[in-house]
C-alpha cells in the first residue's frame, strides 16, 4: 500500500517532464519587486496588441512568463515588450515547460537541464582581492587626510604596501591624531613610529576578511544586475570557495558581449584639475587621443560606486551619459562645485584588464590599468546629484551607463575558466544520453527476463519504477541534469538489479538446499539484506565524496548516482517484495519461477 502511494507520488512528480518546452519571454522587474496578477494582464495585452496570442501567461516567483507558439512569435513579443517596458523591467527570451495549468498550480516543475544539455556559457571568475584591499586603504588614506586637515594638524599621509604612514610635524599632535583615527575607525591597528611623531595604520585580519567578503558579495550583486540588464533568463551567479564566482548563462550562444560586460571594470571618477600642480598627491593623467592631459588632484569628488542611476543618450549631438549620484556623492559634488565655480574638473575613465604571459612554462598575470581623461570642463554653476558627462563613443557610452547602473565591481574580476556549449551540441547530448539510457535499459530488461523469468519481470518493474523515482527526485530537488548525470543514471540501471540478483540467487540457493518455496522466498530476502546494505553504502560513500570534491560535471554524476542508489534500494527490496507477496503470497507453491 505504502509502495503504491510512493509510486503514485513519484509518477506525479516525474509527470512535468513529459510535456516538453516551448519558446517564451520572461519579464523581471527592474528593482527586483515581485509582479502581481494585474501586471501579467498588462503584459499580455501588450503582446496581444501586436496580433500575437500567447499560449499561456503566468507568474513564477514574481517573474512573469509568457509562453508562445513559435520562435517567430517569441521574437515579436519580446520586441514589443522591450519597446514598452525596457526601462522598468528586464526582458529575456527563454524556454518554458508546456505544463497544463493544474500541474503548474501544484508547483511541479520538470528537471532543470545543465548547460551541457541546453547550451550556454559557463564562466568562472576570480576576484582580485589585492585590489579590494588596496582600494579600501586608499579610502582610509583620503578620509584620514581630510579629518586631520579639518583639525588643522600639519601632516603627511602616505600609503605603501597596504600600510598608511602618517607623519606629523609636531610631537604633541600625535595623541590628537590618534584620537582622530580612532574616531574614523575604532578597529584599525595603530602603531607608533620610533620618532614619536609618526603613526602606522593597518587593517586587522578581521577587517581584511570582512573586506574580502564584502568585495565578493558586492561583486555577486553587481554581476547579477549586469546579467539582468542583458536580459538572460535563469542566469546563475554564485560564490565558489573564498575568491571565486561562477556565472552560468543558459541559452546564450555568443559570449562575446557578455564577456565584455561581465568582466568589465569600466568606471569613472571626477577630480578637480590642479592648475598650479602643487597640491600633495597631485599627479598627471593622460588624456584620450584629442583630449589634453591634466594634472589632477588626489581627492576624488565622486566615483562610480556613488552613482545610483545612469542612462546613455545624446547631448548637443554628442554621446553622453546622464548620471545620478547618491546623497553622499551629491553633497560632495555640491560642496565642490560651490567652492570651485569657474575652475576645471575632469572625468577619468578607468579600466583594468589582465593579460597572461608565459615564460619558461610559468604563467604570470599582469594587470593593466588604464586611466584616461575623457573630458575636462569648466564648472559653470553649482550642481548636485544630476549631471552629464561626454567624451565617449556611442557604444562606450551605452556600456558605461549599463555598468554604472548595475553598480561597480568592488574589486576587478578575472576569467579563469570559460566554457561555451552550442545549442546543437546540447540537443545532441540530450538525444545521445537518452538513447544510451533506453538501449541500456532494454538490454538489462531482456537479460533479467530471460535469466530469472517471472522474478526477472518483477525486478524489471522495480527497475522501471526506479527510473521514475530518479526523475521525480531530480524534478523535486531541481538539481541540474548533466551529461555525466545521465551517465550516472545509466550506471544505476546496470547496478540497480544487483540487489535483486543477490536476492534471487539466494532464493535459488535456499531452494537447492531443500527449503519450501515460501520459506525460500522469505529467507532469500532476509539473508540478502545485509549484503545489499553493505554494498550500497560503500557505493554511496564514493558518490558522496564525488559530490563533496567534484565541481560541475562531476557533481551531476554524483547526484544521479546517489539518488539512484537510494531509490534502487527501495524499489529492489521493498518494491519487489510487495509484488512478490501480492503474486505469490498466501498460496501453496510447488515451484518458484526464479
Amino acid at each position, binding site marked *: 500500500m505504502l509502495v503504491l502511494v510512493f509510486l503514485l507520488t513519484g509518477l506525479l512528480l516525474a509527470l512535468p517532464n513529459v510535456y516538453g518546452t516551448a519558446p517564451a519571454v520572461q519579464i523581471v522587474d527592474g528593482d527586483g519587486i515581485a509582479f502581481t496578477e494585474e501586471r501579467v494582464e498588462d503584459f499580455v495585452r501588450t503582446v496581444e496588441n501586436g496580433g500575437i496570442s500567447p499560449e499561456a501567461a503566468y507568474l513564477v516567483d514574481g517573474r512573469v512568463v509568457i509562453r508562445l507558439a513559435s520562435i517567430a512569435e517569441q521574437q515579436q513579443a519580446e520586441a514589443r515588450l522591450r519597446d514598452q517596458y525596457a526601462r522598468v523591467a528586464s526582458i529575456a527570451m527563454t524556454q518554458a515547460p508546456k505544463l497544463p495549468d493544474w500541474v503548474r498550480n501544484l508547483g511541479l516543475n520538470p528537471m532543470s537541464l545543465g548547460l551541457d544539455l541546453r547550451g550556454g556559457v559557463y564562466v568562472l571568475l576570480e576576484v582580485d582581492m589585492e585590489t579590494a584591499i588596496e582600494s579600501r586603504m586608499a579610502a582610509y588614506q583620503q578620509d584620514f587626510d581630510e579629518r586631520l586637515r579639518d583639525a588643522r594638524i600639519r601632516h603627511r599621509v602616505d600609503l605603501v604596501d597596504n600600510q598608511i604612514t602618517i607623519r606629523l610635524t609636531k610631537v604633541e599632535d600625535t595623541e590628537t591624531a590618534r584620537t582622530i583615527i580612532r574616531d574614523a575607525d575604532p578597529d584599525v591597528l595603530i602603531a607608533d613610529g620610533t620618532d614619536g611623531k609618526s603613526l602606522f595604520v593597518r587593517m586587522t585580519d578581521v577587517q581584511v576578511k570582512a573586506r574580502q567578503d564584502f568585495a565578493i558579495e558586492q561583486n555577486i550583486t553587481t554581476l547579477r544586475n549586469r546579467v539582468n540588464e542583458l536580459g538572460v533568463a535563469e542566469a546563475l551567479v554564485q560564490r565558489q570557495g573564498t575568491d571565486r564566482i561562477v556565472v552560468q548563462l543558459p541559452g546564450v550562444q555568443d559570449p*562575446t558581449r557578455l*564577456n565584455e560586460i561581465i568582466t568589465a571594470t569600466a568606471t569613472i571618477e571626477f577630480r578637480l584639475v590642479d592648475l598650479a600642480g602643487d597640491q600633495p598627491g597631485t599627479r598627471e593623467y593622460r588624456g584620450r587621443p584629442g583630449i589634453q592631459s591634466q594634472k589632477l588632484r588626489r581627492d576624488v569628488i565622486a566615483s562610480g560606486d556613488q552613482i545610483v542611476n545612469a542612462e546613455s543618450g545624446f547631448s548637443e549631438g554628442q554621446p553622453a551619459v546622464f548620471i545620478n549620484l547618491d546623497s553622499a556623492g551629491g553633497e560632495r559634488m555640491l560642496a565642490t562645485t560651490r567652492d570651485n565655480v569657474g575652475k576645471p574638473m575632469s572625468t577619468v575613465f578607468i579600466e583594468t584588464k589582465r593579460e597572461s604571459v608565459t615564460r619558461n612554462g610559468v604563467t604570470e598575470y599582469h594587470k593593466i590599468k588604464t586611466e584616461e581623461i575623457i573630458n575636462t570642463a569648466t564648472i559653470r554653476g553649482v550642481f548636485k546629484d544630476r549631471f552629464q558627462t561626454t567624451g565617449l563613443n556611442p557604444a562606450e557610452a551605452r556600456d558605461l551607463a549599463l555598468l554604472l547602473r548595475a553598480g561597480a565591481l568592488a574589486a576587478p574580476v578575472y576569467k579563469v575558466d*570559460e566554457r561555451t556549449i552550442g545549442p546543437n551540441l546540447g540537443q545532441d547530448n540530450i538525444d545521445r544520453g537518452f538513447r544510451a539510457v533506453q538501449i*541500456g535499459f532494454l*538490454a538489462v530488461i531482456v537479460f533479467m527476463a530471460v535469466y530469472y523469468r517471472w522474478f526477472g519481470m518483477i525486478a524489471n518493474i522495480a527497475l522501471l519504477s526506479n527510473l521514475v523515482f530518479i526523475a521525480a527526485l531530480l524534478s523535486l530537488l531541481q538539481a541540474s541534469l548533466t551529461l555525466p548525470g545521465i551517465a550516472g543514471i545509466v550506471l544505476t540501471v*546496470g547496478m540497480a538489479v544487483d540487489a535483486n540478483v543477490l536476492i534471487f540467487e539466494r532464493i535459488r540457493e535456499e531452494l537447492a538446499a531443500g527449503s519450501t518455496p515460501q520459506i525460500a522466498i522469505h529467507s532469500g530476502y532476509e539473508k540478502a539484506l545485509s549484503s545489499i546494505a553493505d554494498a550500497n553504502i*560503500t557505493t554511496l560513500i*564514493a558518490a558522496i*565524496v*564525488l559530490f563533496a570534491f567534484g565541481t560541475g560535471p562531476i557533481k551531476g554524476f554524483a547526484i544521479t548516482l546517489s539518488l539512484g542508489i537510494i531509490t534502487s534500494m527501495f524499489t529492489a527490496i521493498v518494491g519487489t517484495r510487495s509484488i512478490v507477496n501480492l503474486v505469490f503470497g498466501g498460496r501453496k507453491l510447488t515451484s518458484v519461477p526464479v
Partner: protein
Amino acid sequence: MRLIKHKTTINFLGKTRRKIALAISLLVVVVSLVEVATRGLEFGIDFTGGILLEVGYSQAADLESIRGNLADAGFSDAQVQLFGAETDVLVRLAPQDGNAQEIRNRLQATLTAGGDSIDLRRVEFVSPQVGEELAEQGGLAMIFTLLMIFAYVMFRFQWKFALGAVAALAHDVIVTIGFFAIFRLPFDLTVVAAVLAVIGYSLNDTVVAFDRIRENFFKLRGISAEDSMNTSINEMLARTLITGVTTLLVLTALLVFGGESIAPFSIALIVGIIVGTYSSIYTASATALLLGVNAQDLLEPVKDPDLIDDLP
C-alpha cells in the same frame, strides 16, 4: 536460465593459484605505474589548462588545411583531430598569452577562413591554475574515498579485510589509470569520476564476497579459512558475474550511443569493472588470507549472555 552450473567448486584461492594471481596483479600494477610515471597520461584541458574547440563543419572536414590555417595564424601548436564524425573537428591548444577575447576572435576567424560555415559546438578556455586545482581535487577525492572505505570495512568487518579491500581498490584504480596511459586515451575530469565510481562498484563486489565469507566462517566451522573463502567465492560467483554482465551491458550502450565526449568515461568504467570483478575474487581475499585472516577475527565479544538464546 543459468550462466554457470549451480555448484561450482573452482579452487580460486589454492596456494599456487593464489600466488600466481597475486604475481599477475603485482606485475600489472607495476607496469601501470611505470607507464604512468614514464609516459604520463594524456591529460585533457581540464587538468592542463588551455583552449578546446569542437567545431561542426557542413561537410567532411579537411584536417590538413585546418592545421595549415591555424599555423598561419600563429597557432602552430594546435592539435586537430576528428571527433566522432567526419564533419566534427576537435582543436586543442596550449594556454595562449594575451587577451582571451582576442584569441577567441582570431581562432573563429581562422576556422572560417576557407569560407566554411561552422557550428561552434563547444569552446572551452581553462586557465592552467584552475587545471592544477582540479587535478589536486581529483587526487584528494580518490585518497579520501579509499580512507572512508577503509574505515567502513574496518567497522563492518575487521582490519585484515579492510586492508584486503583497499588493496583491491588501489589495484583497480592503478590498473584503470595505467590502461589510459598505455593506450594514450584522453584523461579528463569525467574519467576521474568514472574511476571513483569503479571504486564504489569494485568495493560493492568485494564487500558482498566478504559478507558471505563471514557467514561461512560461522556456518562451516572446522574447515580452513582458505576453504571457507573458496566456498564463499564460488557461492557468490553467479551473482558477481550477472551484476557484471548487466553493468557492462549498459556501459556498452553508453559507449556506443553516448557520444564522443562521454566515451573516455565509459571506457574507464568498462575497464574498471572488469578489473574490479577480478580483483574482488583474487586480490581482496588473497590479501586477507596473506594477512592470516581467520574465523576468530570476526568473532565479536559476547556482550549479554541472555541474548544468545535469541540468535538463530
